[in-house]
């Protein structure tokens, strides 16, 4: 067992326990795997951002001048595919979830450490396929791969791209499998379901969605490959098949997938609000069950992507009303976070700035989602920039802000060092401003009628696109800042201490960075989560004195 080497209480932690590249590439420590994932995922984020920059640059002028039409089509497709499958879906679960799930429940590792490592390799295999697609000139079907365009008419690298999605799906299945089993079977003594941090609840709900949804994407992409490669025919009207069946299968996964993206961010949100208001999350059980409700109901609304597809109007009606229902648990969460602030003791550190941004932007994104779920409106704005704006509000304004908030919150735990407080706050504010400048104009231009996936557009839409591109520039700058100061903190950052925020939760009871097996003595839990008002949350078998002392000093 390679990881058992040195975990002596004092100096050694998971980062220093072993040295050399091999000790990283063969590690079975969930924390190291999280770091590996952090590196991979950041790479793909930059790649996806690069394509976004191309897209926005092209759209500065109405004429298609910077890129050719084909290059533009590849650019937004690669942007969407990379951002969704290689960044947003794995980002929070595979990085923060991987690091924190075992620590938060007081376990030594995930249930299947080898499968965890395998998942990272599978992810990178998918990444390699993705890079291969790029080398072959990219793919131009849109991230939705709609048939029969993808199966018959596109002459780009559809098959490798579909295989990349297929393989990436397996890596998230492996992660989810690990989470479900770990959360069910490996909680510390005393850690009952209703004492779990909400981060765990939301990762549990996410994992269920991944397990139930991803296989359907896998078979759909496989069928697409067979269709394109061997003329399977089930999506091809020329052979008696129906292209709309593909849409059903695709969205059966891909709508729940949007909750795969947002639920972990909601989990982070609960942790941040509680920690920086020093108060138990308002209505804990309701917030916990809301995650499950979203996960389950989220499976029954996929047809809202198909209102104009020739889907039966009756099916559309059912999907529409269910869409309305699934919005309610999200609304409840927003209200409960707001109520948590009431009578709190609020401080405005960087993670909290992101959390506050999340509340605002997710609310706008969610409300425009409900508008899209209203069929009379969707008929007009479907496949326009209104939809583009909606999903960037939830995915960037929601998930990425949540991810960044979480990263800033747990960074000192993961690496033991604190980043620059001034620059990190500036970055949060720049991101917020740049984001709104990029995507607010898209709502307007969308309602005006500008369709998405347009390489050139009528001149009267230009002003809004200029604003949007300007915003994207600001946003890009804001996102580049953390890259700099977070990396610098690894070298020069002040030592963070075990609990820099004075937060509650098992992860703050252990050292920063944690030892290889997370706790020197297995913890025993005797209290609820977020017991800020009471004296102590946790009776660790071995109590870390230093950590307790720092509890209230930042």
């Amino acid at each position, binding site marked *: 067992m390679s990881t058992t080497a040195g975990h002596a209480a004092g100096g050694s932690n998971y980062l220093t326990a072993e040295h050399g590249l091999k000790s990283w590439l063969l590690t079975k420590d969930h924390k190291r795997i999280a770091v590996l994932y952090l590196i991979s995922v950041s790479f793909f984020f930059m790649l996806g951002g690069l394509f976004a920059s191309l897209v926005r640059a092209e759209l500065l002028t109405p004429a298609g001048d910077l890129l050719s039409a084909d290059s533009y089509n590849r650019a937004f497709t690669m942007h969407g595919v990379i951002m969704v499958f290689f960044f947003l879906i794995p980002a929070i679960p595979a990085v923060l979830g991987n690091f924190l799930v075992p620590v938060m429940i007081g376990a030594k590792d995930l249930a299947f450490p080898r499968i965890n490592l395998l998942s990272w390799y599978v992810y990178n295999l998918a990444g390699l396929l993705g890079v291969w697609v790029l080398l072959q000139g990219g793919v131009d079907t849109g991230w939705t791969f709609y048939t029969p365009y993808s199966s018959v008419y596109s002459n780009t690298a559809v098959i490798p791209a579909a295989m990349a999605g297929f393989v990436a799906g397996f890596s998230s299945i492996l992660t989810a499998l690990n989470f479900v089993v770990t959360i*069910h079977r490996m909680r510390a003594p005393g850690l009952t379901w209703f004492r779990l941090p909400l981060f765990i609840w939301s990762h549990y709900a996410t994992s269920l969605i991944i397990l139930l949804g991803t296989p359907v994407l896998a078979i759909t992409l496989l069928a697409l490959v067979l269709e394109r490669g061997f003329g399977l025919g089930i999506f091809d009207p020329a052979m008696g098949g129906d292209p709309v069946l593909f849409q059903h299968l695709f969205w059966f996964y891909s709508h729940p997938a949007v909750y795969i993206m947002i639920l972990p961010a909601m989990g982070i949100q609960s942790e941040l609000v509680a920690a920086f208001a020093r108060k138990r999350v308002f209505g804990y059980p309701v917030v916990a069950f809301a995650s499950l409700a979203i996960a389950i109901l989220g499976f029954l609304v996929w047809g809202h992507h198909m209102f104009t597809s020739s*889907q*039966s109007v009756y099916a559309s009606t059912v999907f529409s009303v269910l869409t309305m229902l699934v919005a309610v648990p999200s609304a409840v969460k927003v209200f409960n976070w707001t109520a948590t602030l009431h009578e709190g003791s609020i401080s405005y550190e960087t993670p909290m700035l992101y959390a506050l941004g999340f509340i605002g932007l997710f609310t706008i994104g969610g409300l425009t989602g409900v508008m899209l779920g209203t069929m009379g409106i969707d008929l007009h704005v479907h496949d326009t920039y209104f939809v583009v704006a909606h999903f960037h509000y939830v995915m960037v304004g929601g998930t990425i802000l949540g991810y960044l908030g979480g990263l800033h919150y747990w960074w000192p735990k993961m690496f033991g060092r604190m980043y620059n407080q001034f620059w990190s706050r500036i970055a949060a504010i720049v991101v917020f401003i740049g984001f709104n400048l990029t995507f607010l104009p898209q709502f307007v231009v969308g309602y005006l009628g500008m369709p998405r996936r347009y390489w050139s557009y009528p001149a009267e839409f230009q002003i809004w696109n200029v604003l949007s591109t300007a915003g994207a520039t600001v946003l890009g700058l804001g996102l580049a800042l953390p890259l700099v100061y977070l990396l610098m903190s690894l070298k020069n950052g002040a030592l963070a201490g075990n609990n820099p925020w004075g937060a509650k939760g098992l992860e703050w009871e252990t050292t920063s960075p944690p030892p290889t097996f997370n706790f020197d003595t297995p913890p025993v839990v005797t209290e609820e989560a977020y017991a800020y008002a009471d004296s102590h949350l946790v009776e660790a078998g071995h109590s870390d004195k230093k950590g307790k002392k720092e509890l209230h000093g930042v």
Partner: protein
Amino acid sequence: MSVHVEPVKTYVMVFSALMVLTVATVFVAYFDLGLLNNFVAMGIALTKASLVVLIFMHVRHGSKLTKMIALGGFLWLIFLFLFPLADYDTRGLLGPLGK
């Protein structure tokens, strides 16, 4: 360690039941019962599958969690089938186009 060990006899009995049901399903297929054919065939297949799940796969003596997982998988399969089929079966009900 509380592993429930089924007697060999149980397994053999389940096997025989599965054989009988296999013969039954082929036998029924000889008759044209209209739509009923589908229900009978699927009913028999479901029965066979349940036998395998409950006994060969030990769910009968398994934990509550395994039972829930197995049922959950079945339920989600129904979700997957229900909505698309409902879509296809109700298309065009607004009346022939042009009315």
